[in-house]
């Protein structure tokens, strides 16, 4: 395993220490239980936004804590859901009196831990709502499974809900925005290489030099199918086809096109992916009114990309364009 780390068991703690040293103006880090929270938390009268999940997906979620986005994020061990005690303490820390929204990715572990945390927080008198993001169209037969995984749309939900909260909207209004993203976002990813989990030390899966994994999750879960490596344009077609055929919208609609790098894929390749994805949107009459290109939900060092489409109405555009000031995303401030 070639990684820029010290002790595999210390990866998350040391990363958090790095975040604390790097961004004291934006965020603070609480240790035991671990969570990252806005330096000015709680913001009185504002709905608090909490997300969390396994580590290894940075900048999601800790990198998105700050003005206009999350109020706190709970990092679990690498690829493992965080625990209820983290979520409870973070929820208490960011409750400004207007309630707290938990943005949860649809994984059994995340859901169970967030549910337990929400129960505990409610018992302490905090108004908690949760929205579960489940946008990964790679998961088929979702009636017979744990449902679709939550992937790319999560970051978009955090951005627009963060803006909505900043604009003073109520908890139920922020929930509505989140549900809109949940309904209008669709994603699919692929891997050229496996990631290597630090405490494991070897790649999670073996992918021969001439093969790729289509429909992979963000934890190195095997995907829909493994196949021969193809040129970028064909891969993008294979990702876009299931997204577009599942879209609850139609030609003429405005969309945000998000091309995400999995951690080991450099920007030059992301723009080659973006090029084709944009062309396919145009062919389907979808207007790309905003885009978002970069490694925003990584899967450690995995090489690969994922694509997310989100329908945008006037309100989502306003919320997307609202200023944001976090370690991992910044504009307008």
């Amino acid at each position, binding site marked *: 395993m070639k990684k820029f780390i010290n002790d595999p068991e210390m990866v998350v703690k040391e990363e958090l220490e790095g975040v604390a040293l790097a961004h004291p103006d934006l965020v603070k880090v609480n240790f035991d239980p671990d969570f990252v929270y806005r330096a000015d938390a709680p913001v009185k009268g504002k709905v608090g936004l909490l997300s969390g999940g396994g580590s290894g997906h940075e900048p999601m979620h800790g990198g998105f804590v700050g003005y206009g986005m999350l109020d706190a994020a709970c990092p679990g061990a690498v690829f493992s859901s965080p625990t209820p005690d983290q979520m409870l303490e973070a929820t208490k820390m960011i409750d400004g009196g207007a309630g707290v929204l938990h943005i949860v990715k649809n994984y059994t572990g995340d859901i169970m831990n967030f549910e337990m945390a929400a129960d505990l927080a409610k018992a302490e008198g905090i108004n908690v709502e949760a929205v579960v993001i489940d946008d990964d169209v790679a*998961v088929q037969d979702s009636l017979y499974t744990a449902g679709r995984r939550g992937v790319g749309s999560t970051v978009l939900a955090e951005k627009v809900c963060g803006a909505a909260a900043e604009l003073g909207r109520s908890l139920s209004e922020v929930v509505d925005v989140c549900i809109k993203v949940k309904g209008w976002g669709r994603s699919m990813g692929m891997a050229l290489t496996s990631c290597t989990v630090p405490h494991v030390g070897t790649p999670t899966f073996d992918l021969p030099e001439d093969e790729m994994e289509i429909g992979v999750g963000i934890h190195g879960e095997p995907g829909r199918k493994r196949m021969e490596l193809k040129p970028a344009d064909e891969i993008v077609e294979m990702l876009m086809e299931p997204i577009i055929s599942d879209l609850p919208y139609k030609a003429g609609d405005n969309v945000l096109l998000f091309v995400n790098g999995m951690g080991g894929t450099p920007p030059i390749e992301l723009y080659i992916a973006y090029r084709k994805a944009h062309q396919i949107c145009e062919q389907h009459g979808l207007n790309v009114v905003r885009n978002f290109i970069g490694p925003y939900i990584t899967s450690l060092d995995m090489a690969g990309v994922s694509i997310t489409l989100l329908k945008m109405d006037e309100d989502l555009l306003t919320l997307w364009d609202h200023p944001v000031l976090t370690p991992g995303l910044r504009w307008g401030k």
Partner: protein
Amino acid sequence: MSISRDDVLDWIQVTAGILKENRDYLIKLDAAIGDADHGANMDRGFKAVMGKLPELADKDIGTIFKTTGMTLLSTVGGAGGPLYGTLYLQMGMKSAGKMDLTLEDWIVALQAAVEGVVMRGKAELGDKTMVDALSPAVEALKEASSNGRSLSEALEYSAKAAEEGMTATIPWVAKKGRASYLGERSAGHQDPGATSSYLILQAAADTWKDC
């Protein structure tokens, strides 16, 4: 013919050792159909539980189990954390104040614990989860008890049933948890959670064989 407070502490200690030994094995199982963390999570959790043992030296079985559950809940994470947390918390509820457990006590405790896991995870038998090891173990305990078996015999049957339940998961297609995303590709692999459940129950049978 009963399980003492010290036996319970022994069991937890033995479990911690066995999960540590099987850390990489469980990781490998989870890598095949999940995300390669189950072994690390369980090991981390039980390591934390071991750190709590000194303060449990003179406590009742209910407290021991509840502390174990709370500790797992806040250190394991993933799906395993809430599920195993619930398992031990429920055991703790049913053995509150007790300083030893008869076979009947253990049946009541384990049954409640497994029901708690089912409530939390909503998995049914055959979904390819830890429930496939846990539920048969409870049934085997009950049957052994109604057949008049001794505690140690019953524990052996129960571990055996868990092992069979674990092995049975191999050909199945997962319907719950992360493995379910794989669809048909999950068939042919043994469920990691069912495996850790078997290991825990086998540890009970081994540790308590002279009870």
